[in-house]
């Protein structure tokens, strides 16, 4: 289904995407029938609890994990139908930044080589040109190229490693970056530095972003629109401020309530979330959120709720939306 009309063709369009993992005799339903659009120049935030399929979705967009079915249209090209060189060329336009900044960098390679690697894969043969491009991008992310290029990842803090990952993602001048929990492993203070850097780089390089996180406050800080995922399915999508002011899906409301607020006068409401998400090996019938939803009834167990329009630009998959 179409989510919302965009003024121009979206840069990324995900249609009916299904991704499954087979573990022994069982199937993990990691991403089930997800539809998404990201307009050029937009940041779409993607939130949900651990294990709900955010990373799988990100990897399936890049075809690092081939989906069972569905399409991934990037600038009009279906990546799921592409192979070999054609796919490699498209991948230069889409880059990925990972959650664990230290583990995502090869510990035995120098920073200069790590950041230059995408250039080598892309066939930039002139070493002097590569050196120049690496220096430029390291300076752009706030590192001193002369000081860092010859050093190894373990000599850097988590925040600095995340700057290096961002530099590596930017070096080929991509159009689209998938940020998979880029700040989840960082302290509050360093997190703010990296979020600001991403915003700055977005403006400077004219990027479009898919920003994955489990913390709604972080997602809101950088996103134009937010998509909420639960156990492999999309629950709600809408403009950030609108979604926060008036969430339609009970799960979105629960995520908002769970954010710790730095104000002692606002004692946190107790027991916002009941229990943990069920296993994606045997997701609940009907609405997958029903086992934790305060509004669930028989219909929720019987029928899968479709994503429906609840307000301008806002869509929710719930039989009994809050608005």
């Amino acid at each position, binding site marked *: 289904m179409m989510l919302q009309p965009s003024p121009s063709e979206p840069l990324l369009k995900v249609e009916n995407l299904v991704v499954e993992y087979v573990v022994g005799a069982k199937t993990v339903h990691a991403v089930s029938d997800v539809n998404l659009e990201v307009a050029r120049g937009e940041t779409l935030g993607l939130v949900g609890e651990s*294990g709900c399929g955010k990373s799988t979705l990100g990897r399936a967009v890049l075809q690092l994990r081939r989906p069972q079915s569905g399409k991934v249209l990037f600038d009009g090209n279906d990546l799921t139908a592409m192979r070999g060189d054609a796919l490699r060329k498209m991948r230069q336009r889409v880059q990925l930044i990972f959650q664990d900044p230290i583990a995502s960098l090869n510990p035995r390679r120098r920073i200069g080589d790590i950041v230059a690697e995408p250039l080598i894969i892309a066939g930039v043969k002139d070493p002097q040109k590569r050196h120049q491009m690496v220096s430029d991008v390291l300076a752009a992310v706030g590192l001193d190229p002369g000081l860092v290029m010859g050093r190894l990842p373990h000599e850097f803090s*988590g925040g600095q490693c995340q700057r290096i990952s961002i530099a590596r993602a930017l070096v080929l001048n991509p159009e689209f970056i998938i940020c998979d929990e880029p700040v989840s492993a960082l302290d509050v*203070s360093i997190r703010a530095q990296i979020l600001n850097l991403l915003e700055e780089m977005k403006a400077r390089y004219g990027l479009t972003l898919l920003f994955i996180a489990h913390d709604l406050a972080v997602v809101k800080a950088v996103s134009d629109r937010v998509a909420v995922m639960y156990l492999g399915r999309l629950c709600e999508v809408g403009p950030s401020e609108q979604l*926060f002011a008036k969430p339609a899906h009970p799960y979105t409301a629960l995520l908002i309530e*769970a954010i710790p607020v730095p104000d002692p006068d606002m004692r946190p409401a107790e027991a*916002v979330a009941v229990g943990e998400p069920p296993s994606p090996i045997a997701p609940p019938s009907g609405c997958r959120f029903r086992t934790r939803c305060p509004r669930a009834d028989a219909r929720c167990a019987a029928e899968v709720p479709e994503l429906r329009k609840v307000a301008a630009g806002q869509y929710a998959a719930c039989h009994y939306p809050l608005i």
Partner: protein
Amino acid sequence: MTGTTLLSVENVVVDLPTPRGNLRAVDRVNLTVGAGQTLGVVGESGCGKTMLSRAILQLLPKKAKLGGRVMFDGQDLVSLDREALRKLRGRSLAVVFQDPMTSLNPVLTIGTQLIETLQAHLELDIAAARKRSVELLTAVGIPAPEQRLTQYPHQLSGGMRQRVAIAIALSCEPKLLIADEPTTALDVTIQAQILDLLAREQRRRHMAMILITHDLGVVAGRTDEVAVMYAGRVVERAPTLALFKKMRMPYTEALLAAIPKLDAAPHTVLPAISGRPPDPTRPIKGCSFSPRCRYAVARCHQEKPGLTEAETPAHQFACFHPIEMPATVPA
């Protein structure tokens, strides 16, 4: 602080020898926790929160040198022998770590670990210990507790493992629980549940707690008093309500400002703290925060400010130019 003092940390120093020279992880820290009270300890990664909690627990690395006194329930823990400490840690002094696997044994079932702890410290017979284990798992919100007893830690999610670690920590009714970033590795939804769980059990048991975190949002609604640490020292200390009403130390203000606000429009630039905490093997001459502080003046680079009292004796801060205006509390 109301009530009787349960823990008092007096002039505690932790020195660690490293190839780069001496690393002072904790520098002359003084703190007290009253019976049944909660103290929040806040600061960036590497500022000494974990080393302070290990100093209290007498669980420092072998090569570490500890100075000062740790008075707990009338005894100086620094002078206790290993056997006495072991007894104390199982019974009246308990800990929950960021990574629950630190305290869980991967090759033993949940049931074995709980039952053995209960038998060792409370001298229960196996049937009574088993019954108590089921009660504890129920109390920490684990569904189907009888079945869980037969499972191994790796068969549980991160949130469930942390619940089990809390159940074990609570099992002997401790007087003080030290929770070192118990929710940093968890989702926000699970974090909220675990913090609720700790608060509920604490009230019920009249247990004191030290809640360590890097997020001021976590301590705001859940502690009686807050100590902010920077570069091994306590730089501001106040009752929680007073602190959020009027922060005096620029570092505390900067930590609060760096949290994304729910009522801010998307793409608002966050007031980040530039740079990083200083290298602890290369102590700074003046105020440790001076290289990053937007209020720093010449004196800040020359002299180290001591912890001084504000209007109320309970509110202390270490700064030559404390913030005068009451901090605006964000929604």
